[in-house]
């Protein structure tokens, strides 16, 4: 039986998720890696444990940047490699244990000038790769040089760069056909990108996709919906377009990552106090849930106050749909189970992993370093 993993790291208000397929293909979406401290999970260490290595260098097959906000690319420059893959030198302090990205997915919004330092670092890498495509350099197809544009090429900067647009089903990444897995691209639509530019709202430019885990007969085992910080307007459009094209399959979900760190913006405009009623289309999106579906809120602790994100009332709306026990908050889950939110996906669907009991019993006897004896 094949076993895939999808993992949402506890990074406060921010996103880092990892998909690891049975054949060890990895997809990382967004980056928020903070300095490790007592109550901060070591995301980098966990990534290095999970990512494959090529000639001793860790790499991911695919990195998706939903949008260039700091809570989605914080720490990127410290942990990801920039430059020609052949020049990586593990002995260089600046390179050590940096992750090579074989293929990058970004939107055209990456070429804005008003980006944070980490986003700018990523932009420079995208530029390097973009030049290979423009010049038709054969190295553009090498792992570590590949680039894919998601959505509309607003400023025509991605000439010759391959692109996936909303409605596409992606079955190949990094030059390889995916096994038992595909993506359905939902966004951004052109409107989102234009709006984002017009009002400098990066969230509107978010990449939205449905990750599809399939069995040997191409039946869905699990569908996970990731949408960065997309708001209710983006989702309304996604819903109407998908329904218009009878793509209901692409709306169904087993795992729904609550957009924008469980913000009210998925349900209506903010502040919530002024827009208390959730939009019908947002609630209908949630009705596409499958049996035992889970909402994943990657954010800090959700307190009963007016803070946003995460927003308490937003959580309540999700809970109404899936039930309290199917709403999983990355902060609470980490606190209780010492784990990121990890789902194992196999022929029986998805299973949320919890703290192992073994560590508390004799099974671990002798396997840990004991304290010194006097």
């Amino acid at each position: 039986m094949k076993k895939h993993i999808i993992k949402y790291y506890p990074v406060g208000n921010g996103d880092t998720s990892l998909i690891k397929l049975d054949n060890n293909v990895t997809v990382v979406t967004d980056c928020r890696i903070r300095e490790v401290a007592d109550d901060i999970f070591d995301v980098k260490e966990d990534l290095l444990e999970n990512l494959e290595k090529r000639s001793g260098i860790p790499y991911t097959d695919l990195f998706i940047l939903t949008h260039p906000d700091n809570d989605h690319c914080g720490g990127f420059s410290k942990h990801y490699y920039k430059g020609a893959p052949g020049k990586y030198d593990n002995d260089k302090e600046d390179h050590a244990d940096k992750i090579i990205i074989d293929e990058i997915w970004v939107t055209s919004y990456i070429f804005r000038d008003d980006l944070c330092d980490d986003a700018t670092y990523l932009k420079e890498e995208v530029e390097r790769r973009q030049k290979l495509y423009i010049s038709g350099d054969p190295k553009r197809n090498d792992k570590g040089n590949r680039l894919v544009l998601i959505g509309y090429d607003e400023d025509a900067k991605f000439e010759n760069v391959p692109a996936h647009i909303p409605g596409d089903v992606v079955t190949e990444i990094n030059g390889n056909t995916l096994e038992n897995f595909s993506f359905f691209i939902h966004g951004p639509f052109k409107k989102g990108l234009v709006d984002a530019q017009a009002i400098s709202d990066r969230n509107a430019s978010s990449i939205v996709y449905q990750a599809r885990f399939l069995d040997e007969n191409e039946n869905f085992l699990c569908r996970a919906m990731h949408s960065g910080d997309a708001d209710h307007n983006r989702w309304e459009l996604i819903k109407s377009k998908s329904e218009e094209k009878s793509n209901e399959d692409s709306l169904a979900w087993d795992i729904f990552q609550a957009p924008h760190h469980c913000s009210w913006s998925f349900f209506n405009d903010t502040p919530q106090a002024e827009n208390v009623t959730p939009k019908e289309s947002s609630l209908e999106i949630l009705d596409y849930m499958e049996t035992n579906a889970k909402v994943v809120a990657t954010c800090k602790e959700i307190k009963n106050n007016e803070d946003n994100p995460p927003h308490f009332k937003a959580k309540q709306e999700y809970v109404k749909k899936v039930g309290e026990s199917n709403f999983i908050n990355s902060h609470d889950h980490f606190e209780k189970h010492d784990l990121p939110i990890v789902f194992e996906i196999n022929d029986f669907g998805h299973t949320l992993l919890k703290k192992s009991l073994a560590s508390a019993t004799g099974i671990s006897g002798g396997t840990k370093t004991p304290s010194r004896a006097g």
Partner: protein
Amino acid sequence: MMDSTFGKIISKSKLKNNISKRVLESISFFTSTIELLEIRHLDGIDSIIVEYELEVPSKPKNDIREKEKLAIVIQGDDKIPRVLALRDDFPTNISHINIKETTHPVDLCLYEQTFDELKFQWSAPDFLMRIKKWLESSSTDTLHAQDQALEPFLMANGLIYYQKIKDGVIPQFITKVQPNIYRLVDANEAVSKLMTERHEFYHIIFCNVEKLHGVVNIKPNNLFELHNLLLKADIDTAKLIANYVDNIFRSDNSQELINEPFAVVLNVGLKRGDNDTHIEKNDTHFFKIDDSISSVAQKAKYLGVHEGPTIVPIVGAEFNIKDCESFSVELLNPQLDFYYFLAGLRNDNTKAQDIKITLLGVGALGSHFLENMIRQGYGKWKIFDNDKLLPHNLSRHTGVRKDIGMNKTDVLAKKVNEQIFPAEKIVESFPENILDIDDDVQSQIEDTDYIIDISTSIAVARRIVELFPKKRKLSAFLNPTGTDLVLLSEDTDNKQSLDLIEQQYYNEIYKNKELQNHLFLEQNSRIRYAQGCRDITLKINQEDVSTYSGILSKAIKKSISSNHGGIEIWSFQEDLSIAKYNFDLQSWSKYNSNGWTIYLSKEFTAMIETFRKQKLPNETGGIILGGIDVYSKKIYLVNSILSPDDSIEKRELYIRGISGVQDQLKKLSEVTNNNIQYLGEWHSHPQGCSTNMSRDDKILFSELCEEAKFRGVPTLMLIQGDRDRKLILGNYES
């Protein structure tokens, strides 16, 4: 409900049993998984109510949820706590549930042993983990081991063993084997055996259903309860009994048959999904009623008494099952019978089950070896031996006294095919001598995949090389004192046949200092590994045979699963450890001369080539050592006594000396049991010279031929040159 079942809520200080306190303390270690809800107490029984948070998948096979409320019921410190799943719709159609009077709450069966067995190791954390594992595995239906009998821990009154019920085959009777031990008998056996031997037997009233939810997890106490229980599966027990009674009255001996007791047997064909047509497994449940079918039917007013003792049906009567509350029903704990497939499955030999093997020789080692293999479900066997079992064989053979006088192959075939795996033809007996088999038998052997020779006969080993050159052959034997086991195996492509391996084996023991006594038998000058077993009866005992038959079956399984041949020797040491010697097979070159085939081992040719080079520019030489098979006209060159010290080595002259030769030949004869001997002479020619015989060589050769006549064997002369060598055979016959 909670109050009446588990009693009032109490504080933890009021817990009565020590185990309760241990469980409660452990729960506090597992806060992320187990939430303590309540502690209750009723009549000495503590109940700890908890909620488990589980790792269960979104599309489970059985409806176990991420959160399950359970009661851990502690009945005392000498009992395993019971674990009850409290959800009203907790699934009941899963394995490992204890049978009780009601379906809910479902009683989890966590252990297969009794507390007496478990108490030395039982720990509360492990117990709590086991509950988690039980629930999580049940959600994906992976708790049940494939070969495991169902529900081994139910409250049954006896045990019944049975072979899997095949589709469409209705079992006929249950027979009592021993008190509380029963066996299911199928139609064939019932007709042929049971009726003539008049065992105590039970009629079977059989019903077959395809799906059943929870029904069999309730234990019915009497016949009426059983009837009500089976009604849930649309089975009308009253009607089934009535029909069965009607059938009895159609037979001639109805008055006898009607006085036997009966059992209701329920076969449940389980499918993976509701829409599946394939039945994945059959679960069988046995409900035994010790009263006669007659007394039950009379009580139900279906039968009556007519003219004294004669029992007759009452015309137009209904079967009043509700009157049958007084007939108690006993559950029998079903256990799968032991049959060949299961034997293989339990030992990971399912793939090896159909390997066809010819086994030559079923004496002491062979009989033990065969039992090792068949009891683990390995292979289908054709066994050959023309020996009969005699009283002295009882010291080591697996046969028993009543087998004396039978052919050994028949003894084993009978034991395996009748007493261990009845009705399965695992072993085919050929009580004949492999040395004179006819074409038909030969083609039967040709039809098998491997030939294993444990005949301890050189004649047999050599004969099979002639008869079955393409078949992979393995030969095993004990040394004369029983301290060592030898396994010679050909590789898959038969590059080195068994006779070549045998010759290499002699040479290896000759060369190895630790194996110098391997073939040595005290007080006996005529020692051969292949000599008649009677000569060595007193030397080898059951413990040697037993030890080495176990090693041999392991070694042969390993050898068959790989493609490599080899020579393996196991040898008991003084401290009772066993040393192991492995020798890779070496390659051979082959010459034909005068109707003889001459094989030269690579080791031999390399040895003389190297030695010649060392002595250049002078000539040198030595004695050729090896084996000879006069019957098959084969000569094997394996070793050499290199130029003795008193030899004369000149540029165009070589005279072989004799210093030490006699001692070496004597030792050779002792160590190899005369299997390696003097075969002739070799010498080298200088660089640039041909390997044709010189004048001196011709004189020498005719001398050798003269001498060979006295020995009755051919002689050999070998001339080694730069690149080639000449081998001349002097045939004593010509």
